[in-house]
């Protein structure tokens, strides 16, 4: 029985939800403002809506993981973000968690993995 497209999409979103914070923290090791951050994430293959990105930045700042400041750039006021010291510690912790999880999943899925062939089988 083929897997419905909406189920696949829900699974995909669930899988990537937790990784977005890691991607944002990793990208903000160097200072960026919202638009360049989104562009850089998209360039790396991590697409995120503005409607989700900006609230996330504010939440991370409230949690003390980011610091921001308004500054003029190209004749416009922009808000620049970068990692705080706590954010750098959180990034290091999450990175090691991610790597451990990745290694564990690799051992479960195998180096060749179920890959696309396994899923394709199921979809058929």
């Amino acid at each position, binding site marked *: 029985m083929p897997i419905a497209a909406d189920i696949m999409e829900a699974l995909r979103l669930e899988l990537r939800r937790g990784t977005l914070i890691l991607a944002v923290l990793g990208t903000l090791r160097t200072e960026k403002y919202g638009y360049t951050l989104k562009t850089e994430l998209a360039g790396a293959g991590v697409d995120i809506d503005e*409607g989700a990105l900006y*609230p996330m930045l*504010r939440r991370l700042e409230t949690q003390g993981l980011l610091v921001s400041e308004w500054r003029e750039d190209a004749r416009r006021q922009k808000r620049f973000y970068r990692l705080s010291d706590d954010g750098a510690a959180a990034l290091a912790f999450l990175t090691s968690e991610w790597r451990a999880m990745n290694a564990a999943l690799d051992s479960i899925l195998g180096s060749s993995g179920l890959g696309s062939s396994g899923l394709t089988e199921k979809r058929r």
Partner: protein
Amino acid sequence: MTDLVERYLASVERRLPKATAQDITAELREALLAKVDAREAALGRALNADEMAEVIKTFGAPAVVAARYEGRMHLIGPVLYPWFWPAQRTAVGVTAAIFLVLAAIRALASDRPVQAMLQSADNVIGWGLAAFAIVTLVFVLVERMGDPVKLAEGWWDPKSLPREHIRKPRSLFESGISLFFDIVFMLFWTSLLPFPNELPLRDGASVAVTLSPAWAAVYWPVLALALMAAAGHLHDMVRPAWNRLRSALSMAGYAGGLAVVWVLLQSRPLVDVQPQPGTSAEDLERALLLVDGVLLVSLGIAALVWAIALAVEAYRQVKATRMSEPGATAAA
């Protein structure tokens, strides 16, 4: 075309907390204009209204964007939700049952029972909705003010889980119906609700049947037993699974019922019959024998049922004790 941007930002801003609204919209404005600039640079011209609307749409609906800043996008979260519907079922069910019983009593006491029942239907719906609203409000307050995770963890203990394997939990309908009959019986017993007691005989004759003085000795015990049964059935509506306390209450009820039967059997007859106009002495004698006999058999059947039920409950108590003993699982 910045008019569309400003309208969008104003729509987001009015949904945000005042303290942060301006700061957030300033950042969104910058983000929107940066995206517009990039799009215009790619096209080599200014965006028209449709293209501008398309860019704005990628940011999401104002209500959704504002809610994301608030961080909480639910009234009752996944930690409390598993308790939400069971709580609603119980609250609305118990409320509806109480008002249905009241409606039934009102209907029985009225000259126009159907009309009285329909008039009471408004109360059932209204109070059912009120119960739903109150439970929802309590859950929302706990979600907002309490610590749902801690509460959810503290709410349950494996040792207090219902013993559903001892006896199938009673349904709300079953308990509600039982409660209804308990109340009707109590109304009959206390003479608050008059029941017809005329027994028609052949040839148009009839007799009025009343309980004999033998029953006077058990008036209060029977009322107490009926109240106990009603309390038990009300308890079943909230906690339908078997538990020791409820079982003990049932056992006390069955034992009390047996004692009442034993007391009644010491003095006969169980009923008195009074002749109505046109009833012969022979008819009267026959009616007394018949009603007394029927009541005697009914009491005998009730005593048998209660004795069996008492034994079953005693067995369940023993079974629960055995299953609670250390090593019971290993032995099983």
